[in-house]
């Protein structure tokens, strides 16, 4: 009889990573290792003010005292933090004045990744900050945005040009004492993106940062800080890829969002770091702290994430709902194939009155992939009329993968209304046969079923990226079918 469905599923879920190439470019890199001198060196390279160096050093000293967290459902060999390079940048001859001066090798790299940095070629209406290893190489449409009063630049530039804003907000949502990886990032972060949307401004274009790790044996530690002032709105998207390498690479980012009165930030992530090979060799260790503070009345933060890459994912984009009537949202699709492991979810902390949060999490496990949803909904004592709706669904493809759900609910105010729903299902042979019987191949059927499963999250993405995300799911699940 025909090749069994099981065999077909195995074929389909074992595919090659598309962005695994390396760029041959000269690097400026500092010696491996982590000590006070390395922290000082990074700060010196960045020409930072003393207060920032002091902050880094405090973070470093705090990190030394912290134990590595062990509570996640992730299994990996011990990371030797002294055997990593903490700063590597493409060599440049002089200060860049325009895009024409960017190394053609770098432009070609981004072209190959489908992110043309040439403004004429770009998706209209999307400005990009391109971060390559430890530095931002270019930010497009900076001038257009400036006219609208929007600041969009690399973190390093922001430290030089807008020190008052950085000093005011850095570490306010994620203090360096927050957790092990946040402390490490605060000590050694090398670049990232900075966004400020002034009062009453709707950002005229989508903003996006594209992160690329290229150099071998290097960690990437970037920070993103977005501030939306009163009555403003911005939609921001980040994308990530890395070459295929046999050793594991560390990525530990911090993202801080702040919305003031009646402001909204929509933050979308398409994370496609190298996931490792079929046997679980190589891949990025992704330890990320993302948190948003809804500071003002009626402010809103919405996280949407599509997580298909990385060997390990440790990530909980969260919202602190401090302003009265503020809203937090978390929409997530996470896929673990082969030997990938993901421990991801969110925290919604209700502090203000009439605060509302929504959590929709979709986990997909294939191959030997392991998927954990970990979420916390906390309603503080004085938060009246808090509302939360959580929905966590998992789907399993094949017999060797797993899905786990850890919802924590902590309610200290009796007026809260909390709803939680969770399901786990297996991609059914009945569903596949039904599609097959209608002439649809098993490969297309799996894509169809998975996209249907993820629909409620995909519809939260900006239009162009929703299509992108669907394609990414296809690629992550597709393979030669015999």
């Amino acid at each position, binding site marked *: *009889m*025909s*090749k*069994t*469905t099981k065999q077909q599923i195995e074929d389909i879920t074992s595919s090659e990573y598309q962005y695994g190439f390396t760029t041959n470019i000269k690097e400026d890199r500092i010696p491996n290792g982590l000590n006070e001198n390395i922290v000082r060196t990074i700060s010196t390279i960045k020409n930072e003010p003393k207060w920032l160096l002091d902050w880094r050093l405090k973070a470093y000293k705090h990190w030394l005292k912290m134990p590595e967290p062990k509570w996640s459902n992730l299994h990996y060999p011990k990371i030797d933090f002294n055997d990593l390079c903490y700063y590597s940048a493409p060599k440049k001859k002089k200060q860049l004045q325009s895009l024409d001066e960017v190394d053609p090798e770098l432009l070609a790299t981004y072209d190959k990744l489908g992110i043309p940095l040439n403004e004429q070629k770009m998706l209209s209406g999307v400005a990009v900050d391109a971060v390559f290893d430890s530095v931002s190489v270019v930010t497009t449409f900076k001038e257009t945005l400036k006219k609208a009063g929007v600041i969009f630049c690399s973190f390093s530039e922001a430290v030089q040009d807008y020190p008052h804003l950085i000093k005011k907000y850095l570490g306010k949502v994620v203090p360096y004492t927050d957790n092990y990886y946040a402390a490490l990032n605060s000590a050694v972060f090398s670049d990232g993106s900075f966004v400020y949307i002034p009062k009453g401004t709707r950002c005229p274009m989508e903003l996006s940062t594209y992160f690329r790790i290229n150099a071998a044996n290097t960690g990437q530690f970037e920070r993103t800080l977005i501030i939306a002032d009163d009555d403003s709105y911005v939609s921001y998207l980040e994308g990530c890829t890395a070459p295929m390498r046999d050793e594991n690479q560390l990525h530990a980012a911090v993202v801080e969002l702040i919305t003031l009165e009646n402001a909204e930030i929509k933050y979308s992530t398409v994370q496609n770091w190298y996931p490792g090979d079929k046997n679980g060799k190589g891949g990025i260790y992704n330890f990320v702290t993302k948190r948003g503070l809804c500071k003002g009345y009626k402010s809103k933060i919405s996280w949407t994430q599509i997580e298909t890459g990385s060997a390990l994912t440790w990530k909980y984009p969260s919202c602190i709902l401090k302003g009265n009537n503020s809203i937090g949202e978390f929409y997530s699709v996470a896929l673990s194939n082969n030997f990938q492991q993901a421990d991801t979810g969110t925290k919604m902390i209700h502090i203000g009155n009439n605060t509302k949060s929504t959590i929709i999490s979709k986990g997909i496990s294939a191959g030997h992939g392991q998927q954990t949803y970990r979420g916390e909904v906390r309603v503080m004592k004085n938060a009246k009329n808090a509302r939360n709706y959580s929905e966590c669904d998992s789907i399993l493809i094949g017999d060797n993968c797993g899905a786990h759900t850890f919802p924590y609910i902590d309610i200290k105010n009796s007026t809260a209304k909390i709803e939680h729903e969770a399901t786990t299902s297996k991609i*059914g*042979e*009945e*569903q596949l*046969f*039904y*599609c*097959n*019987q*209608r*002439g*649809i*191949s*098993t490969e*297309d059927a799996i894509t*169809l*079923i998975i*996209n*249907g*499963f*993820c*629909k*409620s999250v995909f519809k939260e993405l900006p239009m162009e990226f929703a299509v992108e995300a669907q394609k990414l799911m296809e690629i992550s699940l597709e393979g030669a079918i015999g």
Partner: protein
Amino acid sequence: MKNNMLKIKKLSAGIEGKKILNNINLDINEGEFHVIMGTNGTGKSTLGNILSGKDNYQISSGDIIYKGESIIDLPPEERAHRGIFMSFQYPISIPGVNTMHFLRTAVNSIRKSQNKEEIEPGKFIKIFKEKLELIGLKNEFSKRSVNDGFSGGEKKRFEIIQMLLLNPELIILDETDSGLDIDALKIVAEGINTFRTKKNSFILITHYNRILKYLNPDYVHVMLNGTIVKSGDKNLALELEEKGYEWIK
């Protein structure tokens, strides 16, 4: 003389070591309407599943010849490409997958296998709505997910819509009449009748003859313990109704 559509030759098959079908022989010509009747558990649905290519059944002997070629080694999608369609007894739901998108994917997969151009979304919407109307379903149906939250009747009607759009030549109707009220039964039967041509052949699997008065079949077969024990014309169904399955045993 009419061309042969399907020839089942000495077919024996089972699942997980359990024998279900036992030496089945059946000849179906173009344009013919065959009915297979029998009590629960006699292997009627197994026969439908094996004809449409569901795996996890083991065929121990015999062959299935469709339009002159053995299809026993073909996967289900390829059988569908060649014109075999099954209306499921229990259509499964696929949450989040829009009915129209699903059907357009199916239609285009089949067209692609025949080297035909894909149908444009705009054109497809029009055709889809025509079929919805024919089968008595509202336009909003095009916004729902495949079989998700459908009533029993809606599921069966949707199966018939799929048949009309996929344009198959051999149609297996697995208990398409069960779970339908009398009005729905009539509409479904009409849908089937609009699709009867000199070329298309049907196999209807059923317990009852209540749908048969609308369909006018050419042959009726009675299945018992995995084999066909009696064949005749539509009067056999009437006789069976009168005397019960005990009469055959």
